[in-house]
């Protein structure tokens, strides 16, 4: 079969070469005829001039000259028409060859571009394996056995920003719920407004492929949040997970007042991770206790100037009246 195809191809090539050779020969012959036409016309003109002057039958010479001129003109037009047609045909063939060659070159360039893109892609993937991925902190405090397991899983999932495996997803969700049940009071003590996102909204954001915030976001009202997330649409969840004023009516007044603090960092940025880093051994306070402590601190700060005034007054009075006993009493108070 190969020899047959090769022989057929060689025959076609030989035929093509023969046809092209014949065409080129015909073209060259027609060009030669056109070149010879000029000399023929000049020789015919000289012949008729001589015959008209020498011959007696001039009328016959004139008629013959007319016929010859008409035939010469017609032959010239035919020659020029054939030559121009052949030239146009040859030119179109060359243009077709050039367009075919351009097409081949475009194909080669496209292949080369595809190879270059593939090489670039492989290089990027090879280099991306070398880059250290950011390590996020644990979101929730899990039991000892589940903490390591869940942390590794969440870390591995954060790299891809998707929880595709259903088993891993359910395990992670159960671990988060168990942690929230074990430490319900710790969910209320986060003071910043960025810690208002529910675990379900967090999980939704992770499912959508966002880069999740590493800071833990327990809800202010856990039971209400979980009941709402099951009924609310996803858009509302996303909107409310971003806003710091989530469920303002369900909170106590102190917590809602604290939620208006300007520390409204974006929930998607992991920059606030070290600031909100919490360890299990850290002593925990409820929100109301912390507020009370802050109020006591402010009272102490207000009491300090009054005491200092009294101390100064006592010193002045000591200078004046030299009564050290009074000073000692104030010093004891101080």
């Amino acid at each position, binding site marked *: 079969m190969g020899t047959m195809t090769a022989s057929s191809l060689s025959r076609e090539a030989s035929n093509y070469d023969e046809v092209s050779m014949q065409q080129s020969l015909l073209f060259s012959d027609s060009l030669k005829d056109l070149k010879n036409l000029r000399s023929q016309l000049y020789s015919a003109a000289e012949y008729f001039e001589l015959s008209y002057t020498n011959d007696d039958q001039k009328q016959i010479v004139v008629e013959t000259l007319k016929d010859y001129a008409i035939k010469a003109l017609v032959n010239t*037009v035919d020659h*020029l028409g054939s030559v121009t047609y052949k030239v146009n045909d040859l*030119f179109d063939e060359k243009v077709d060859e050039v367009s075919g060659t351009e097409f081949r070159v475009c194909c080669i360039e496209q292949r080369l571009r595809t190879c270059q893109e593939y090489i670039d892609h492989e290089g990027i993937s090879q280099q991306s394996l070398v880059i250290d991925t950011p390590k996020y902190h644990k979101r929730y405090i899990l039991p000892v056995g589940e903490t390591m397991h869940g942390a590794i899983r969440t870390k591995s999932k954060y790299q891809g920003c998707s929880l595709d495996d259903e088993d891993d997803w359910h395990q992670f969700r159960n671990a988060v719920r168990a942690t929230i049940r074990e430490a319900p009071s710790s969910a209320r003590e986060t003071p910043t407004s960025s810690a208002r996102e529910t675990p379900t909204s967090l999980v939704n954001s992770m499912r959508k492929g966002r880069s999740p915030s590493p800071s833990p976001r327990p809800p202010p009202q856990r039971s209400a949040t979980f009941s709402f997330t099951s009924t609310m649409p996803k858009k509302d969840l996303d909107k409310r997970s971003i806003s710091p004023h989530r469920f303002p009516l369900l909170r106590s007044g102190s917590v809602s007042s604290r939620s208006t603090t300007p520390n409204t960092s974006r929930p998607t940025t992991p920059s606030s991770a070290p600031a909100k880093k919490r360890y299990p051994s850290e002593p925990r306070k409820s929100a109301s206790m912390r507020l009370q402590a802050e109020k006591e601190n402010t009272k102490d700060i207000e009491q300090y100037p009054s005491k200092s005034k009294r101390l100064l007054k006592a010193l002045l009075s000591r200078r004046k009246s030299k009564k050290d006993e009074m000073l000692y009493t104030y010093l004891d108070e101080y």
Partner: protein
Amino acid sequence: MARAGGGGGGGGGITNAVNVGIAVQADWENREFISHISLNIRRLFDFLIQFESTTKSKLSSLNLKLDTLERRLQLLELQVSTATSNPSLFTSTTTTTA
């Protein structure tokens, strides 16, 4: 013209006038023939001039195409030569992909 020279006698004036008229008509016929021939030759020259201009424009466009094609081929040859001169690129990518 040959006919105009013949004739004689009393009716020679009439025949001379007729011969002159015939000669003039023949002369006008010859002029018409020459004008036809010259007109056709002029048309032929116009066609040749137009053909020359179109052929020149086509040849210039073809020359431009060939120039661009030559440059692209040179670029491809250079890329292929660089690729063949650095086989380590391909070997590294193949090892990483493998």
